[in-house]
């Protein structure tokens, strides 16, 4: 399967139109989705996932709104990172993973057999827990994704734009040839964000992007997330409840019950979920009674 980024988007767009009626029908069903998200970018329906024989996700359904920050919270082992990695099929890289259900991006199921995960990952970028720049120059770090995806425009301009959007340009513009590894932890993470947005994705997934950073670097990344939300759809996994409350528009609370299967407990607007949770488990978690 080889498709250009454009063609998958065309296809995704077409499918979205075809699928709209059925989507509305499903939105009214009894899946644990607390309120309906208008015009979602990602729509996850009844997603189950197994690592070998061990089930890690059970019956997760939720829709991610466009150009908003959505936070996934919950105690360790509740499956929030696993859920995040389903959105760009990074779980495919782990042996013996089995996925059931659907993850639709712009209406097209990315787990359909006709979809190449390589194409999905171009449209859905990712920033990892530990900053992981390539051991190459800052410029090459940002340019790599564009280059392999056949970018034909002005590379210098693209690199500058991506670094500006990641609020890193002013700090590195004079030595773009310096190794990405020579930067501080916070700068490295912003470089990773620049690298992710340089391929012009629709969605940027962030897996605890601040857990390895100090408070000041964390704040810069949080500010950056708010800015990026004007252009991109952002989904963030975080252990830090305050962070979820500060940066996200919507929050999903996940929990693994005694069977260790991660499920979605509550999903809604962040203010509502933090001030007036509907589920008592959510309330117990956000008030610090466990987790």
């Amino acid at each position, binding site marked *: 399967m080889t498709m250009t980024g454009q063609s998958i988007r065309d296809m995704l767009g077409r499918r979205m139109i075809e699928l709209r009626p059925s989507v509305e029908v499903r939105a009214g069903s009894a899946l644990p989705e607390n309120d309906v998200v208008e015009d979602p970018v990602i729509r996850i329906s009844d997603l189950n996932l197994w690592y070998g024989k061990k089930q890690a996700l059970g019956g997760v359904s939720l829709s991610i709104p466009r150009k908003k920050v959505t936070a996934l919270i919950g105690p360790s082992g509740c499956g929030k990172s696993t859920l995040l990695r389903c959105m760009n099929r990074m779980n495919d*890289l782990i042996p013996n993973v089995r996925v059931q259900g659907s993850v639709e991006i712009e209406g097209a199921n990315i787990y359909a057999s006709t979809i190449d995960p390589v194409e999905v*990952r171009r449209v859905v970028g990712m920033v990892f827990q530990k900053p*992981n720049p390539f*051991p190459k120059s800052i410029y090459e770090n940002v340019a*790599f994704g564009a280059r392999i995806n056949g970018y034909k425009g002005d590379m210098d301009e693209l690199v500058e734009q991506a670094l500006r959007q990641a609020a890193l340009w002013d700090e590195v513009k004079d030595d773009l040839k310096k190794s990405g590894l020579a930067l501080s932890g916070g700068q490295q993470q912003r470089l990773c964000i620049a690298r992710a947005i340089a391929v012009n994705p629709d969605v940027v997934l962030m897996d605890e992007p601040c857990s390895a950073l100090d408070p000041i670097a964390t704040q810069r990344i949080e500010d950056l997330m708010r800015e990026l939300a004007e252009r991109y759809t952002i989904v963030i996994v975080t252990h830090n409840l305050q962070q979820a409350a500060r940066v996200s528009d919507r929050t999903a609370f996940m929990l693994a019950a005694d069977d260790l299967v991660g499920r979605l407990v509550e999903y809604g607007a962040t203010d509502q979920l933090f001030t007036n949770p509907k589920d008592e488990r959510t309330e117990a978690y956000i008030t610090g009674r466990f987790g």
Partner: protein
Amino acid sequence: MSMQTPATQSMFQPNQMMRRVMGGAFVGVGVISILISLGMLVYLVLDVAMRGLPWIDWQFLTSFDSRFAERAGILAAIAGTAFMMTMTIAVSLPIGVMAAIYLQEYAKESWLKSFIQINISNLAGVPSIIYGLLGLTIFVRYMMMGRSVLAGALTMALLVLPVIVVATQEALRAVPSSIRDASLALGATRSQTIWHHVLPQAFPGILTGNILAASRAIGETAPLVTIGALTYVPFTPESPLDRFTVLPIQIFNWTSKPQAEFHDLAAAGIVVLLLVLLTMNSIAILLRQRVGGTSRRRIG
């Protein structure tokens, strides 16, 4: 251990004296072992150097073998070794590295993969004469290459392949998976990820493994004796189908002659072989240290 009867002082009998003696004896045995192994090596090298060094001169390095010790030289063996090793590496490096990449980066976990993996490690331990017999049967006889440089190089390639595969796999394993994730998450394919990120980072390690494999092959005699690499070759091989000899065989040949001068010549040949091996191993160590150095700097 019951809580009701706590240990009293009288229950402990430390026997400090005996423990000290045992500790000292243990260290002593260790030191003696080192002295024996190092001493043998030093004696060997000194003996070889004292007998061989006087013979090493320009004439020795640039002459062919001869019936007369003072006219005999090692040129054919040096040329044969260089020619054969070049071809060996040219064959085994690409095959070995590609096999390692497939096993490490592509092959899914399965009983077949484990089976192959175990047997590659086993192959690295198979006595080299077995490879010689294999080479004699397949390359020399069946494929009718004769006792040529080509047949020797292919036999040696078989011999070093498992070593190269294992070393390359280790170098690939040492590349952190976060780099692979980063590349794949940008929409790179597996092969782009390997080509742009994994291989460049693993390259020094792969090179080290290959140099060590080559230095093993250079010292091998048995497989080449088996396929019949000639011991008297008064010319340097020019085509892959020429007959040839290599350093260890030349040395072996000289030691089996009755005249004492030839034994000294053999010592001179050993010095040359040792120098080649030491040089190659030093390069390997340097490469490894350079890599280790940069990765330490990366963390700091």
